[in-house]
């Protein structure tokens, strides 16, 4: 068991080293278009010392995170609520289902012109765009999860004479929680992608803005730094979420493992 783990770690290290080696080889042939790892690292250190657009690098990360998390909290709260109603009541599903099905395929980025036209380029617009990206996976996964709760569990609730509130809170919600969590996970990654896109188009702060700034000033190393940070923060968010999921759904641990 231990040996297998060690082997896996070795393989991971080899693949990461291979990626950096590839980066070195490619970047050395055209350093102007593709900065070397060393140049990127130096740009990163410089960025850490001197603020860009009056904001430190940590500041940019926090601003992006704040936008995503604000929108995510709103999307999760409203998405679970509406999804629960849709999954529980066939009538409500008939009312809301077609609208959501029609709106869902529209990429959140396609909303950018309308959102800017209606609400300007302020914070609200960015949070709204992320909300659009995060809301649909939550609401649809919740509705599906609720409508697919094993009827046996509902019968148990009925036999013990649970009222509607007790049914929803103590039977339907926990039974649907795995599906809901999967929806929130998709929402998180989708929201993170949308925030970068929104910041690239109209912003003076955030990780997406770093990329645009790099692009405008032919600072390719800055573009790369922005991209790497987006990847890193996204990965950390996803890892934190997995920990949270384990904490919220301890009964799923074995199934997941």
């Amino acid at each position, binding site marked *: 068991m231990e040996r297998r783990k060690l082997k896996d770690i070795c393989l991971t290290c080899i693949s990461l080293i291979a990626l950096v080696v590839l980066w070195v080889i490619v970047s050395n042939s055209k350093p102007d278009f593709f900065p070397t790892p060393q140049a990127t690292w130096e740009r990163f250190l410089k960025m850490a010392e001197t603020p860009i657009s009056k904001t430190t690098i940590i500041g940019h990360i926090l601003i992006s995170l704040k936008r995503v998390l604000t929108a995510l909290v709103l999307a999760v709260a409203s998405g679970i609520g509406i999804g629960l109603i849709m999954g529980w009541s066939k009538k409500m599903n008939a009312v809301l289902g077609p609208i959501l099905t029609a709106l869902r395929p529209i990429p959140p980025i396609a909303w950018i012109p309308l959102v800017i036209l209606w609400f300007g380029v302020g914070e609200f617009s960015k949070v709204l765009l992320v909300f659009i990206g995060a809301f649909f996976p939550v609401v649809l996964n919740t509705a599906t999860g609720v409508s697919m709760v094993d009827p*046996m*569990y509902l*019968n*148990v*609730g*009925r*036999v*013990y*004479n*649970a009222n509607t509130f*007790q049914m929803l809170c*103590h*039977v339907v919600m*926990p*039974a649907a*929680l795995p599906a809901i969590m999967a929806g929130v996970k998709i929402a998180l990654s989708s929201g993170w992608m949308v925030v970068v896109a929104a910041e690239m188009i109209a912003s003076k702060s955030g990780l997406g803005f770093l990329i645009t700034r790099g692009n405008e000033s032919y600072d390719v190393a800055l573009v790369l730094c922005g991209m790497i940070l987006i990847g890193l923060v996204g990965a950390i968010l996803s890892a934190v979420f997995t920990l949270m999921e384990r904490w919220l*759904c*301890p*009964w799923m641990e*074995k*199934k997941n493992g």
Partner: protein
Amino acid sequence: MGEEVKVRVENLTKCFGDLRVLDKVSFQIKKGEFVCIVGPTGCGKTTFLRLLTKLTEPTSGEIYIDGEPADPQKHNISFVFQEPSAFPWLTAEENIEYGLKVKKRPAREIKAQSDKIIGLLGLEKFRKAYPHEMSVSMEQRVVIGRAFAMNPDLLLMDEPYGQMDIKMRYFLEDEVIKLWKATGSTVLFITHNLEEAVYLAEKILILSNKPARVKDEVVVELPRPRDIADEKFVEIRKKITEEIKWW
């Protein structure tokens, strides 16, 4: 009769369209009695149980508990399904407490009752275990504990051991007798295993083929623990087998 009647079923009839599944079924169960229902496969046993839980409404007839029409709001009716139905998101202890929490009993009473049931089932070490960490038979034991914890007016069990192997069945049958004696519940147990019926019941109701009626009532007065090889035991079992075969 002298002893208090807990459940009285009068002329219970259920039709699905033209199909008559139950035909004027009548019987009585005394308080604290353990009754088994046997009958040919597909004779409407499950429909019968659903009527008693009030999950389905009868076409005609009445069910009385303590002399009043059965009402899930007022009476405590528990049900053990054929498949293990423990909630996967609750631990063994929380599953056992579920019904009591729905009824909003005082916390101290819930704790005392779940401790008692866990003690009777010998599940102390598995209090905090989730169903996925248990075997199927242990999960079913938790479900049965959940049903007994309610101190139900009527406990309905629909072939709860249908999926267990013989050895496990003997063990679980003894356990259900132990719970029944400790809680004084009134139990209605459906099975297609006649040996199980004779082993468990004080009274056996034999249902006929569809449309089902109560064909016969057999009182089993053997001392416990019962011996399945005992002459009288075998005699009763054979008698019931004949009655079902007669069809």
